[in-house]
């Protein structure tokens, strides 16, 4: 039994301690917004926030997350940065197949939470861990800038 906090709620899960958070979320908690792409921290599809930092949940054993705060795509709309990012993603119709996009949005919102005026270099650095096989990269970049602009517009 491990207790973790997911989207503000403490939950006790029965998964063995070595089980990656990804599979606790998906298989035990039924939260399928976080995706599986590689299982080796190589693609970013499984990105969640651990105490606000972007982490690859496929490579984070649930034991290491005990007592920490996990935030997933399912809770992004209630955070100011997350909702701005989602609004820009909608406005620009970023997704194609969409499968990578939960992870992209989690990485992008972690970037913008720290850096309201990211340069192209900042975006490259924050987003290079997220593969998009559909090649939506230029739209991702544009949507991050759009979200940054909309947040600064709001003051």
């Amino acid at each position, binding site marked *: 039994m491990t207790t973790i906090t997911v989207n503000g709620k403490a939950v006790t899960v029965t*998964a*063995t301690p*070595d*089980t*990656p958070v990804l*599979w606790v979320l*998906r*298989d*035990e*908690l*039924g*939260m*399928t*917004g*976080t*995706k*599986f*792409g*590689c*299982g*080796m921290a*190589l*693609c970013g*599809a499984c990105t969640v926030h651990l105490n606000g930092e972007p982490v690859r949940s496929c490579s984070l054993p649930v034991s290491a997350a005990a007592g920490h705060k996990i935030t*997933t*795509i*399912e809770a*992004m*709309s209630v955070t100011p940065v997350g909702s701005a990012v*989602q609004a820009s*993603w*909608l406005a620009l*119709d*970023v*997704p*194609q*197949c*969409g*499968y*990578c*996009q*939960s992870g992209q*949005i989690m990485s992008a919102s972690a970037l913008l939470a720290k850096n309201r005026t990211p340069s192209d270099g900042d*975006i*490259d*650095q924050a*987003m*290079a861990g*997220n*593969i*998009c*096989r*559909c*090649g*939506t*990269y*230029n*739209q*991702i*970049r544009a949507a991050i800038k759009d979200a940054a602009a909309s947040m600064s517009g709001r003051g």
Partner: protein
Amino acid sequence: MTTIFNWSSETECTAEVALGNPSRRDFLKVGGMALGGLTLAFALPGTNRLAQAAVGTFQPNAYLRIATDGQVTVTCGLSEMGQGVHTSIPMLIAEELDADWSSVRVEQAPVDKAFNNPYFKMQATGGSTSIRAHWQPMREAGAAARSMLVAAAAQTWKVPVSECRTESGQVIHGSGKSLAYGDLVTTAAKQDVPAKVVLKDPAQFRLLGRDQHRLDTPPKVDGSAKYGLDVRLPGMLTAVLARSPVPGGKVVSFDASKAKAVPGVRQVLQIPNGVAVLADGYWAARKGRDLLDIKWDAGPLASLSSSTISKMFTDAASKGGALARANGDVSTVKANHSIAATYEAPYLSHSCMEPLNCTASVTADGVEIWAGTQSQGPAQGILSHVAGVAPGKVKINTMYLGGGYGRRFAPDFTIDAVLLAKAAGKPVKLVYTREDDTRAYFYRPAGVTQFSAGFDQAGEPIAFTAKVSSPSLMEASGFMKLPADGVDNFAVEGTRDQPYEFPNLRIEYARAEPGVQIWFWRSVGHSQNAFFVESFIDEMAAAAKADPYQFRRKLLDKEPRHRAVLDLAASAADWGKPLPAGVHRGIAVAESFGSFVAEVVEASVSADGGVKVHRVVCAVDCGHTVNPQIIRRQMESAIIYGMTAALYGKITFKDGRVEQGNFDSYPMVRINEVPRIEVHIMQSSEHPGGVGEPGLPAFAPALGNAIFAATGKRLRQLPLNTSELKRA
């Protein structure tokens, strides 16, 4: 090669589609959230549609229905894999229906003959056919509904239909009075379905040809979109399968004791394709699978290696083969000078972001699967054969596809899921690890093409030959046969029909079969053939000391659509004007899937051989446009997919085993490598062409040609061997 499954000749898309089981639908609400903006339908009436349509709904055909609140629901038989079909098909219907676009939603259709792809004669999505094949029938479906709504309003008002027009979800009478479609539902449902409809003059289009937001965006930004991997059924087990590490290998014996000791592991089952560990969830199944101790008989391909495969193709190409096309007589040409070159491309994996998976349930009532599939129609027939039930007892639920690119047209993963569910006596979700997915064959064929060209004294090209060697995709597909002339259409597409005019030309095809299961990969034969042909044409331009753009242009006198996109790309890219120091241009043009695309790539090469792509200018003529934003995005998507193939993509074999596994050994282009991409769409009134694939073929040759312009080195292999570019 062994064909690993049988496509039933008649796929028997029976209309046995019951109204959805509500409890099932509840199970698809996962994580405490209802389905997002798009309801994946399990509930479309098949036959007797009118009789089964819910009371208070107007449903003139299988493709749309209108509710009393005016909401228009389009039922789409095509699979949404990112190409935008869940938006563009509704747009075709909404245009002729004169619907209010903001009231249009979309749902996924079940398997039904009504949804057969007119190009394939089966329900399937691929070959960039969706718009080409449905341009007319979907518009007719919308127009039929519109005419019934007009008849209903005319009847209500007791006026002739000729006094009524429609706009944005309303019928409007000449006097100014109007009725919303929702208010006409009951009366419209009583009208006769018209035998013939008149379609709009494209000049009258209000929606088509204009950017519209995608209908599938909302669930794809909040995590609620349901892909195959997200399906959860009560009592379901997750399976991870150990497949032979060598193509065609068989299990001799296995010891599952360690696997069974993993907490959560419930069953270990052997099926023809290997041994599966079934557990409560993925993690235990994966751990268990990795602990299986299996003795394999590797079979005849135990010593397969990429070097022997390469030699097989090169030898076959050198010998030549079946005649694919001839003009004039190349054997009598007396060339003043000539050039020759050999090109080669590797096997490629599709590597969809969502690893292959399928959930299956087999009960006394029949078979039900949930999967991201591009071929639900034939899958129904195939799975009925696999499970030994009537096709009408197989229900296919098409989920969102986390990428398809042709891979999900193959039924292999659905077959294994059904076999496992049947053996387990419980619903089973079969999940491929990333490594499993990369090593699951169904690769883009490898191949070699040898070219030669002859020039007269004035430097004009007078002879062109190509000898193509690759396996037969038609035979590998299981639903096509190599034609009597012995020429595989896919192996020579883009080469046989290369567009340049040469007085003497000869194209041959030499089939060679290393034994690896091959499949359709984004842009199919064009994916390598455009690289071969358009690189060699560039070599010819260099041999003729001509500008590569002007050289092509001159030989395209009789191909106006090729020439027009070439001109557009060249002018948009300022061809011939100076670039920053070290940056060079390459150009290429290719027709595929009914569309014409030219690309100019700007690239630079560093002293250590590093290639940087700065900018891609793409010009496309895809006939009438539906949603220009989707067209631009599909071009961009295919260019980046092609960039991964050009720079990194290769599946290689050693001792019969695939050497690549995860994204570390099969890398993908990432955001920091992506160039600026500009897409220019030609105004055209031609029949629509495809858009999902045609952006890909021209990229690799345009890049290779830019590298040649930068370095004078001609790279004739994919992926481009940039280590050759290192300056000492």
